[in-house]
């Protein structure tokens, strides 16, 4: 056991002398995920030779909070409701809050679901809403009308036709509704009670895949209805529309062509905004923007409304690139079209008149290009008074290149050397600070992308000098297995946009989010095939989502999953 005496740096000396922790600490910093076989990873060739197999998809996937809201809005024709605003948040795993394995229903959420169902059933009592939901004149509502409601509403709530047992159970529930509400006809009370019942069923709260029959390949093909739900929740974060349910009923979703046709319809629908927005917010860690603070003397007026505007800019930018222009990762990294209000226009140094509304602008091609040159990213990866090449570089490596960069050691002195006659810039501070041999393994990856962004200060404004010295935005780092020199932000983002590693990483993260689980070995062939396709075509989210729906892992479950 090490001594408990203050200042005993046994761990640090272990690091320097090449102990166990050296390899542990640097193991993640030895390379990127460029092409070529990874000696430690799964044997993709062998896996692909055995045939593209489905990954381990759960049979029960609880709705995320965003999916719950979108679903009840569609189901109850109540476009304004947001019940999940009162739900307890889900925790993030592997960077995303939609990981199906972690979507548990702990007691508080169970009560949240109960309250939401009861409140929504109150809203359904409004005459205008009920009139839309039931297939008859509400005043003339009778048992026959209720039966029809159970059939049609039930199919939409459960994303499949009800079984006869379920139909009977809901018919009984309709009968039990009378007398359980303060007002309304027996019909109205029955409908309200049905609504709260449907919304608390596990067949509503989870996407349940009941299919169990093996095909000739010993795989379990999903039913058309199950495919419909996978399509709509993947591409809309919402429930299947009637067209999709009809397609399922007609067998259109039993073929690749039918699935692709509907996937293409869905990605071009405005509802595709929900997952696109949610994915990018989590991938880019936009929640960090909420906590951005800057030095009041250096940046007067930088209050909480500024990071809020930065977030809004990035969200609008992503919608524009991905949805409106059907762009790809290169466009996200290179587009100079963005959206600013007066606060952002000031940071960008734009001339003209701007107000609190956001307007579309074209940025200076010499200074700005895509996500990494937006003030939100730059300011949230900076200190209160100055830039931070390390934070920016770590983000590039971890989020854009999927490099496994460990956290910095906790027991080392993290003080940057003070400015002096020899150390005049932030870059020089970082260079001196990270030069010890125990640091260079990771910082060879981290520093250069950070240096390339040194023309941007703590709030993301353009600068050519740092502490009175000219900014030197150059550096070398390994990219796609080769040492790559970068000179400034524009050069960096162009090289990242061209790189295999950035494309593969973007795909991998979309795959994790899209299938709501961490990737497994069984996915590696599927991902490899997808990568081959998009490395040439460009990593367009719309096209990737369509391609996901044509994989085996989308349409089938594996036999091995059963009975475990």
């Amino acid at each position, binding site marked *: 056991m090490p001594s408990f005496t203050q200042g005993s740096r046994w*761990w640090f000396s272990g690091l320097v002398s090449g102990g166990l922790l050296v390899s542990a600490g640097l193991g993640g910093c030895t390379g990127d995920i460029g092409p070529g076989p990874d000696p430690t990873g799964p044997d993709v060739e062998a896996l692909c030779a055995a045939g593209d197999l489905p990954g381990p998809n759960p049979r029960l996937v609880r709705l995320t909070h965003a999916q719950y809201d979108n679903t009840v809005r569609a189901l109850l024709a109540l476009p304004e409701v947001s019940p999940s605003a009162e739900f307890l948040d889900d925790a993030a795993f592997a960077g995303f809050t939609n990981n199906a394995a972690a979507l548990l229903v*702990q*007691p508080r959420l*169970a009560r949240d679901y109960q309250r939401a169902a009861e409140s929504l059933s109150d809203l359904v009592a409004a005459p205008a809403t009920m009139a839309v939901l039931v297939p008859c004149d509400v005043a003339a509502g009778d048992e026959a009308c209720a039966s029809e409601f159970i059939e049609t509403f039930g199919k939409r709530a459960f994303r499949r036709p009800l079984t006869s047992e379920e139909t009977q159970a809901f018919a009984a529930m309709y009968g039990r509704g009378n007398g359980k509400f303060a007002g309304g006809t027996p019909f109205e009370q029955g409908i309200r009670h049905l609504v709260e019942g449907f919304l608390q069923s596990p067949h509503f709260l989870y996407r349940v895949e009941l299919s169990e029959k093996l095909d000739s390949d010993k795989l379990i093909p999903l039913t058309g209805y199950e495919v419909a739900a996978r399509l709509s929740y993947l591409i809309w974060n919402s429930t299947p529309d009637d067209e999709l349910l009809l397609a399922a009923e007609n067998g259109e979703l039993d073929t690749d062509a039918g699935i692709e046709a509907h996937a293409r319809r869905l990605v071009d629908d405005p509802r595709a905004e929900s997952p696109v927005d949610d994915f990018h917010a989590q991938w880019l860690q936009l929640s960090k923007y909420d906590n951005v603070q800057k030095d009041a003397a250096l940046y007067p007026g930088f209050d909480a409304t500024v990071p809020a505007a930065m977030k809004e800019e990035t969200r609008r930018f992503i919608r524009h690139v991905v949805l409106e222009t059907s762009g790809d990762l290169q466009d996200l990294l290179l587009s100079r079209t963005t959206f600013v209000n007066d606060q952002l226009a000031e940071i960008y140094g734009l001339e003209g008149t701007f107000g609190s509304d956001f307007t579309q602008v074209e940025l200076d091609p010499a200074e700005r290009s895509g996500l990494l040159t937006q003030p939100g990213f730059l300011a949230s990866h900076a200190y209160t008074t100055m830039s931070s090449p390390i934070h920016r570089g770590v983000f590039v490596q971890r989020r854009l290149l999927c490099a496994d960069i460990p956290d910095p050691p906790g027991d080392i*002195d993290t*003080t940057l050397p003070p400015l002096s006659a020899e150390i005049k810039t932030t870059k020089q501070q970082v260079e001196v600070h990270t030069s010890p041999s125990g640091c260079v393994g990771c910082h060879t990856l981290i520093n250069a992308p950070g240096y390339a962004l040194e023309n941007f200060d703590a709030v993301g404004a353009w600068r050519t000098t740092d502490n009175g010295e000219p900014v030197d935005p150059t550096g070398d780092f390994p990219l796609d297995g080769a040492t790559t020199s970068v000179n400034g932000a524009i050069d960096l983002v162009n090289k990242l946009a061209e790189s295999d590693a950035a494309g593969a990483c973007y795909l991998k993260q979309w795959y994790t989010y899209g299938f709501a689980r961490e990737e497994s070995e069984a996915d590696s062939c599927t991902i490899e095939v997808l990568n081959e396709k998009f490395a040439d075509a460009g990593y367009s989210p719309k096209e990737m989502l369509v391609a996901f729906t044509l994989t085996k892992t989308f349409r089938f479950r594996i036999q091995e999953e059963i009975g475990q």
Partner: protein
Amino acid sequence: MRARQSARRNFLRGALGVTLGLPFLESLQKKEAKAGPATNTRLIVMFSCNGVDMDRFWPNTGYGALTSASFNADCGLAPLAPFADRLLLPRGMHMSPRGFGWDASAGDDHAKGMGCKLTARRLIEGSTYADGISVDQHIANAVNPSGTPSLTLMAGWRADGVLGNISYAGSNQPVLAENNPRLAYQDLVGLNNLDDEELARFEARRQSVLDLVQPDYESLLKKKLSKADRDKLQNHFDTVRDLETTINGSIACNLDPTREAELEAINPDTVSNDGEYKKIGQMQLDVLALAIACGATRVGTMMWGSGAGGPIFNWDGLSHQYNHHKLSHGNTMDDNSGGTVAGYTDMLNGIDQWYAEQFAYLLGKLDAYEEADGKSVLDNTAVVYMNELSHGKDHDFRDLPIVIAGSCGGYFKQGDYVKVTAEADTKNDADAPHNKLLTTLCNAMGVPETHFGAADLGEDGEFDQLKA
């Protein structure tokens, strides 16, 4: 099931509309406790982040009896002087596992400071969430009615991941804290303002829904499911069944109408803003004290801020420019670089005193609730104040700042400042791992334990020096 339900109905009818401070609180809270001796002991953990100013945190007098004279005006705990005879200050305890670089396992010092403090377990490589249940949830599972976990509340901005959580339902299962007191309160008392007739209708609706969904769960559970799917669904089903018999939007007590109106007026979009920190935090303490006093739960936690975070303090005489984490490093940055902030240790001391004031606020609330035996709720509670770290700038995990208030029904010493390490230097506290405190808390709550936390970390047994 049915029997429990009708018991609850009677309870609800009898208790509806009752406000706080009435002598039959004890009988209310004893309903349906399923394990442990028939006691009314409770546990609250109040947690703050970024360490403290260790030079002025502890009493200026030596070990032994605490009086109001034990706290100089600049002592970090000075606001607790009025409660001197209800305090127990254990000194010289280190976190188990220890800090990053000392015990090789996932997570940096902040991650460990948050994720290991109530679990005494390692963090998981990858997610960096803790690898096991936290002491609050463990005790709640044993002493609360089924389906009533430890109540987890917080104030301020919640960091994603391990830095935003102290409570765990199990390995890799963080229990997020509610940061909106209106929602926390609604969850406790949602149906309290219904009259008997309305309440009966609600209960009938809920029973009818349960009758509907129960066969769905049962038939799904008969299917061939992976273990993960089965556990997920079984857990959900158990919870749904428990809804019928637990707090379920109905405890017998309400906050006073003025306070209720203030909670109702909360803007959900600003609850985590710095400017709301004190207001929201004290509302949470009111809700927590109410829930504990009225028996909605016997265990709860209150987390102020997130690890490596914290607000910029600009109220109650504090006028800081940098957030708590930056100040903990003595400068303008989130590490030990950047310009030194003149007078930062005084600022940290001010923050320590401010949190001690909030702790005193909570103690005052609990002390105002009288139980049937004439004791206050505080007497029957162990209110434990813990911090992510000790010396913030060093990310130190030794000599942890811990305060225990209330004897937990006579289990703990009162009015005492006790060294728990055998060493003279309380930083040289290798013999006093904090998992023993968690073990002691379990036993104080009537949940027998010999070793809380990871079996290969820390030590067996309780801190006998703390027991009355």
